[in-house]
């Protein structure tokens, strides 16, 4: 009896482990492993490791030229990586490009269509690649046009505004009812009202359980719709997590210590101090590490009573601006 019970226990334990592995695998909808892309010897994407869970809206943030679009093109099987691998659902992208394309929808940064055709005929052309019947195509096209609010527009695409083109681009990305949406700067160049409308649609798609990979160079935009963010610069992923986690990760190299009062006559020497800014009897010390203990010892030695000694984390905006500034400085240096 004990023997049978032990075996059953083992089987149950094994199947439980298997279930956990299976759940863990299937819960990741996007995965990249050391994903790298080089153009003429220059690394546009450099050893990118990233995971996005099923049903998650993931913000991919970075300045222009950081490697966001290249990453999306590799995920969407439109270009091949130089090295590394990426997965969409259970498919390795390079080995199963058609399968990947069947379950993904892609919205490029500057979408374009066939100007001489109307929205329905443009969408019908793309829908035919999914081997839908005529009736299926007609129904799906009407549905996606309704989602993006273009159902009553009959004119040719050449007469569309930028915002309408962007909506149509989202409609074509939804044609196959994809599990994964790859949106490359989806709100760039559209008016504030259009942006709000776009956010509403994305939130609705999130409710439907779609996994959305949303790239942008605008932090507020990403913060508005994404729960997790990845920051990329010069092809390298700098940080990934919730906005708060990113603040902690990126802020570690950049400490701001507020000290009050801080007599101007007082001298503090520490290798990690970057600079000290005085503001009346207050000082803001920027340092490479948390040196609060060292500061308090100096104050005790000098018999100065501290009113305030606290660590101030830079905001996500400040950290992101720093990333952009550094990438611009580097770009200027390389161009000169």
């Amino acid at each position, binding site marked *: 009896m004990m023997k049978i019970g032990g075996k059953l226990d083992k089987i149950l334990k094994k199947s439980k482990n298997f279930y956990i592995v299976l759940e863990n695998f299937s819960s990741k909808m996007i995965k990249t492993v050391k994903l790298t892309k080089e153009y003429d010897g220059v690394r546009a994407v450099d050893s990118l490791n990233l995971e996005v869970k099923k049903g998650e809206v993931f913000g991919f943030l970075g300045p222009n030229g950081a490697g966001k679009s290249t990453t999306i093109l590799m995920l969407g099987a439109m270009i091949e990586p130089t090295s590394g691998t990426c997965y969409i659902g259970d498919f390795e992208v390079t080995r199963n490009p058609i399968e990947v394309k069947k379950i993904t929808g892609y919205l490029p940064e500057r979408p374009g269509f066939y100007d001489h055709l109307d929205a329905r005929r443009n969408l019908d*052309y793309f829908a035919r690649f999914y081997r839908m019947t005529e009736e299926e195509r007609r129904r799906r096209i009407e549905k996606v046009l309704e989602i993006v609010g273009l159902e009553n527009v009959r004119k040719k695409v050449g007469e569309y505004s930028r915002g309408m083109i962007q909506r149509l681009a989202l409609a074509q990305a939804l044609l196959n009812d994809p599990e994964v949406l790859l949106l490359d700067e989806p709100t760039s160049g559209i008016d504030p009202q259009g942006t709000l409308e776009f956010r509403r649609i994305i939130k609705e798609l999130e409710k439907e359980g779609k996994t959305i990979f949303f790239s942008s160079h605008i932090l507020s935009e990403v913060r508005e719709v994404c729960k997790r963010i990845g920051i990329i610069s010069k092809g390298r992923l700098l940080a990934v997590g919730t906005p708060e986690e990113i603040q902690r990760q990126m802020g570690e190299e950049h400490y701001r210590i507020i000290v009050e009062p801080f007599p101007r006559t007082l001298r503090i020497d520490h290798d990690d101090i970057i600079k000290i800014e005085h503001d009346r009897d207050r000082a803001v010390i920027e340092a490479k590490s948390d040196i609060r203990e060292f500061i308090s010892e100096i104050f005790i030695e000098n018999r100065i009573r501290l009113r305030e000694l606290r660590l101030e984390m830079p905001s996500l905006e400040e950290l992101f601006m720093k990333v952009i500034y550094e990438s611009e400085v580097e770009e200027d240096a390389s161009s000169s």
Partner: protein
Amino acid sequence: MHPVLNVARKEFLDHVMSKRFLILLAAMLVISGISLMEGGQDYKEQLENYKETLSAIESGALGVPPGYTPSKPSPLFIFTRMGFQIMTIGVILAIAMGFDLISGERERGSLKILLSHPLFRDDVINGKALGGLLALSFAILIIILLSVAVLLIFGIVPTIEDLFRIFVYALLSILYLFVFFSISLMASVIMKNSTNALILSLVLFITLSAFIPMISWQITDKIVGEPPEPPKFKVVEIETVSTSSESDIIPKPVEISDEEMQEYQKKMREYWERRERVQEIFDLLDPSTNYQRLSSATLSPYYYTSSPFGEVEKKEGILEILWTLWKNLVALIVYPVVTYGVAYIKFMRMDVR
């Protein structure tokens, strides 16, 4: 529907419904209509002349030996009238159809969207080439149908052999136009914008059809050198006694020996053969020369092979004629193979960012 067929279907419809296609096709139809009417009239006159000659021979009025019959004019003659000017517009049509096929997609931003759907990259370029080929075939088919209609209007009923020759002529015309279509398709892949692609297509067209034939004679001269000098007449002065007090000196040429003449003829033959070989290479580089030779041979009842010193050979059957001109046919096929090959490889490696 296979992705290649879906792309080809869209491209075909885009082409045949585009203004540029309809305008150029209309121009081709107008010119071919006029040429066909003139050709039909000429053919009728030739036929009348033929009948008159035949009855004159029968009555013995012309004094020709018995058994001689003049060759009957071919109804295909009327195609040769419309031939080349139509094809010049056809080339413009082919270039106009191809120059922005890929560059246009890139400029519009539709290429990335297209590639994001379930199809391979080569499905795009294969589909575009197939769609273009079908549209060019459609244009040629309309012109051929118009031509056959004109033949029937003039009461000329083509034979099975004639219809087969018309079919071969149509295939050659499609192939000729596809040469320039594939050149412009290649330009649209190589160049990042459509304006430059159009310029490159036109430059290649002018180079192949005008510049190479223009300079080929001079280059052949340089390669082959001067023709051999003919043997010089030896002049011997002969004094003759005149009736007056002065004597006249009359130069007398000495005849050239047979050996000298044979030697000269041999050198001259070798020179011309060398010259022909070099010139042939240039001719093969020019698609219009290849097309002209093939199409005129296809539409003529007989084809005569000849060279300055060679024997004239008469070829009759269409397959025999095409076999004789195999180099021209291969050259016409090689162009689209090479240019489409370049376009294909370049497109497969294209950076779509």
